[in-house]
């Protein structure tokens, strides 16, 4: 009983100064900016460190970072918070949510509007076209703040290559070579020669892009909400048949949905993985043998497809400024603080540090230059693979600019489900792709209908 009373007193003692301090904050202290992100460790810590750097660089605004679970959970949490009138000022939204956010009307504060109202200037001409294009309207106005952009690349375990008698410094370039290498790795007694993280992103979206194949009409949805899926095409049928055959012969093993495949490569179990370039930070820390044991290469392609390969597309996330709720706007101070934080992120030294620390892309040309001149790429062979792959080919096409589908989160789950059913042997490749199309189109039509007005 006594203990409880003491606790109560202690609580009252700590609460009192806070209560006194609150009005003081409102009058002259820094504006508090709630920032929700979806990056687990170690990336989350690196991101929060950048927010802290911003806090220490000035005294008008203070960014409070909160980890809200993975990307899909963060998106759901932000939307639910908006409905309840407690949305964060800034939410990190993965690229799949871009279509939903763009159609979100007054739930979001478009970046171009925010910058205009606050007179903060960010030079978007400096941003890589693939990054800028993904987050802007057709007329070029920016809707969200690009930050952690990645692309999918192939990582491989050099030890596993050596044990299989393969040259660890020469990565397979085409799918035929990948399959051969995987067969030799399997023959050398490796349980999991090849797996993938983000299965739909790496095997459907990226593979379609580098082969210049649209996955949806209207230039992958950039042209309007009346887009329809086009995944049941000869290229994807061929690729899925290939993957299913590799699954049957035991050279391809399903690593699970979303980012689950990362762990299999990080633990050394998988010899080859297709993953986000942003997974590099984790792999360097966790893969047995460290950075010297990790090979990086561009995604494999089918060499007889005319014109292939071209550039891959980006993934990762961007930062969206949100309104507080359906009937609540932000104050001018809050908007200004958000804009200043964004301008801080655009600084070449911030973007460059994030790139070298994590493996995400250098999103601006000046950051890329800065890193190149520092000699980082000579010391870290393979670290420039993602950006080279992103800039490959001289034309960005309607199929390789990006993907903008409403309800894309749900569509990805549908695609993963159909892939799982195909890998279980319940359906052949064309059937799986047809089911994806039918079920995905139902989602697209529903989204078009609810977001028309």
């Amino acid at each position: 009983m006594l203990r409880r009373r003491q606790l109560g007193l202690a609580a009252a003692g700590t609460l009192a100064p806070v209560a006194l301090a609150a009005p003081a904050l409102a009058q002259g202290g820094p504006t508090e900016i709630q920032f929700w992100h979806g990056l687990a460790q170690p990336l989350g810590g690196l991101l929060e460190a950048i927010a802290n750097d911003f806090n220490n660089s000035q005294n008008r605004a203070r960014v409070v970072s909160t980890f809200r679970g993975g990307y899909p959970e963060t998106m759901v949490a932000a939307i639910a918070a908006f409905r309840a009138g407690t949305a964060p000022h800034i939410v990190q939204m993965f690229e799949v949510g871009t279509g939903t956010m763009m159609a979100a009307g007054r739930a979001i504060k478009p970046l171009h509007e925010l910058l205009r109202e606050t007179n903060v200037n960010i030079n978007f001409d400096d941003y890589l076209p693939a990054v800028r294009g993904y987050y802007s309207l057709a007329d070029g106005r920016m809707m969200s703040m690009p930050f952690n952009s990645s692309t999918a690349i192939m990582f491989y375990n050099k030890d596993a290559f050596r044990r299989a008698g393969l040259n660890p410094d020469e990565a397979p370039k085409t799918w035929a070579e990948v399959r051969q290498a995987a067969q030799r790795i399997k023959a050398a007694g490796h349980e999991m020669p090849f797996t993938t993280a983000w299965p739909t992103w790496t095997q459907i979206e990226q593979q379609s892009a580098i082969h210049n194949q649209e996955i949806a009409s209207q230039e992958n949805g950039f042209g309007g909400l009346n887009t329809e899926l086009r995944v049941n095409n000869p290229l994807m049928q061929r690729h899925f048949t290939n993957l299913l055959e590799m699954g049957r012969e035991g050279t391809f093993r399903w690593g699970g949905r979303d980012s689950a495949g990362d762990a299999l490569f990080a633990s050394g179990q998988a010899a080859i993985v297709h993953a986000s370039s942003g997974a590099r930070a984790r792999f360097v820390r966790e893969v047995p043998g460290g950075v010297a044991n990790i090979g990086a290469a561009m995604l494999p392609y089918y060499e007889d497809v005319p014109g292939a390969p071209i550039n891959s597309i980006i993934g990762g996330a961007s930062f969206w400024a949100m309104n507080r709720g359906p009937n609540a706007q932000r104050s001018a101070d809050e908007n200004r603080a958000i804009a200043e934080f964004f301008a801080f992120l655009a600084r070449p030294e911030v973007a460059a540090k994030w790139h070298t620390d994590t493996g995400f892309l250098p999103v601006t040309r000046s950051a890329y230059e800065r890193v190149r001149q520092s000699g980082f790429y000579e010391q870290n062979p393979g670290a420039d693979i993602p950006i080279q792959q992103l800039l490959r080919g001289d034309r960005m096409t309607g199929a390789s600019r990006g993907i903008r589908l409403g309800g894309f989160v749900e569509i990805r789950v549908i695609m993963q489900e159909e892939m799982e059913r195909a890998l279980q042997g319940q359906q052949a490749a064309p059937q799986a792709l047809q089911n994806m199309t039918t079920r995905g189109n139902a989602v697209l039509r529903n989204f078009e209908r609810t977001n028309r007005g």
Partner: protein
Amino acid sequence: MRKVHFKGIALPYLLLLPQLVITGLFFFWPAGMAVYQSFLREDAFGLSSQFVGWENYADVLSDPTWLESAARTGVFSVSVAVLALGVALFLAVQADKHIRGADTYKTLLIWPYAVAPALAAVLWLFMFHPNIGIFGRMLNALGIPWDYRLNGGQALTLVILASAWKQVSYNFIFFLAGLQSIPRAVLEAAAIDGASPMRRFWTVVFPLLSPTAFFLLVVNLVYAFFDTFGVIHSLTQGGPGKSTETLIYRVYTDGVMNLNLGSSAAQSVILMIIVVVLTAVQFRYVERKVHY
């Protein structure tokens, strides 16, 4: 029992009030909102909504994947209930015998009830994960291709096992209490008449246990319908494919993950109706055969 009569009406209503408030706040209000929501179609942010009548219901009921989920939920719930009741009854009968250390067994058997469904799932994950689980690795080493992340049948088996295991303790307590309340005289009389232990169980013990068993059947089915969300979410997230997606899990994916609130609300209303009908049928028909 002596009946108590209140003089006015104020006091009885006052005494009822807390329960009425709780029922209203936590059942009627949300259920009413679900019914209302099920007639609307909204965008994810709730900025525009449109009255669509029965369309959400029509969409759900004509969706083959929903019908598959419904069938799967039937298989899942019956399996969980039968397994959990069967195992619990067997264990209770054994623990009711005069054996050394009976109290220890009883305590240990009751323990799992205190484990939250999500934690129970993680325990099973650590046993049966094909890469890190001890039994999962063992099965693969024995040449049995065990991977519940890709094999739908294995995944469903695993969630049924984990869900049933979790419920065994609860059933065990009730069965044990039921067994202990059976008058010894009846059993002794049967024994003197020369009935074998098996015969004594099926003709004397089991009928006398039927009220308990009936009550538990209802509770277990409701548990399998609603409370197994944590197990499924932690173990398989409804996959692979849709092979462990039950109706309640689907309400979650469509409502929370896919932000399709209208459809999700319609599904939960349908689920509510199913459970109401199921309970009514149980009380009307099954109860007739129960000896009290």
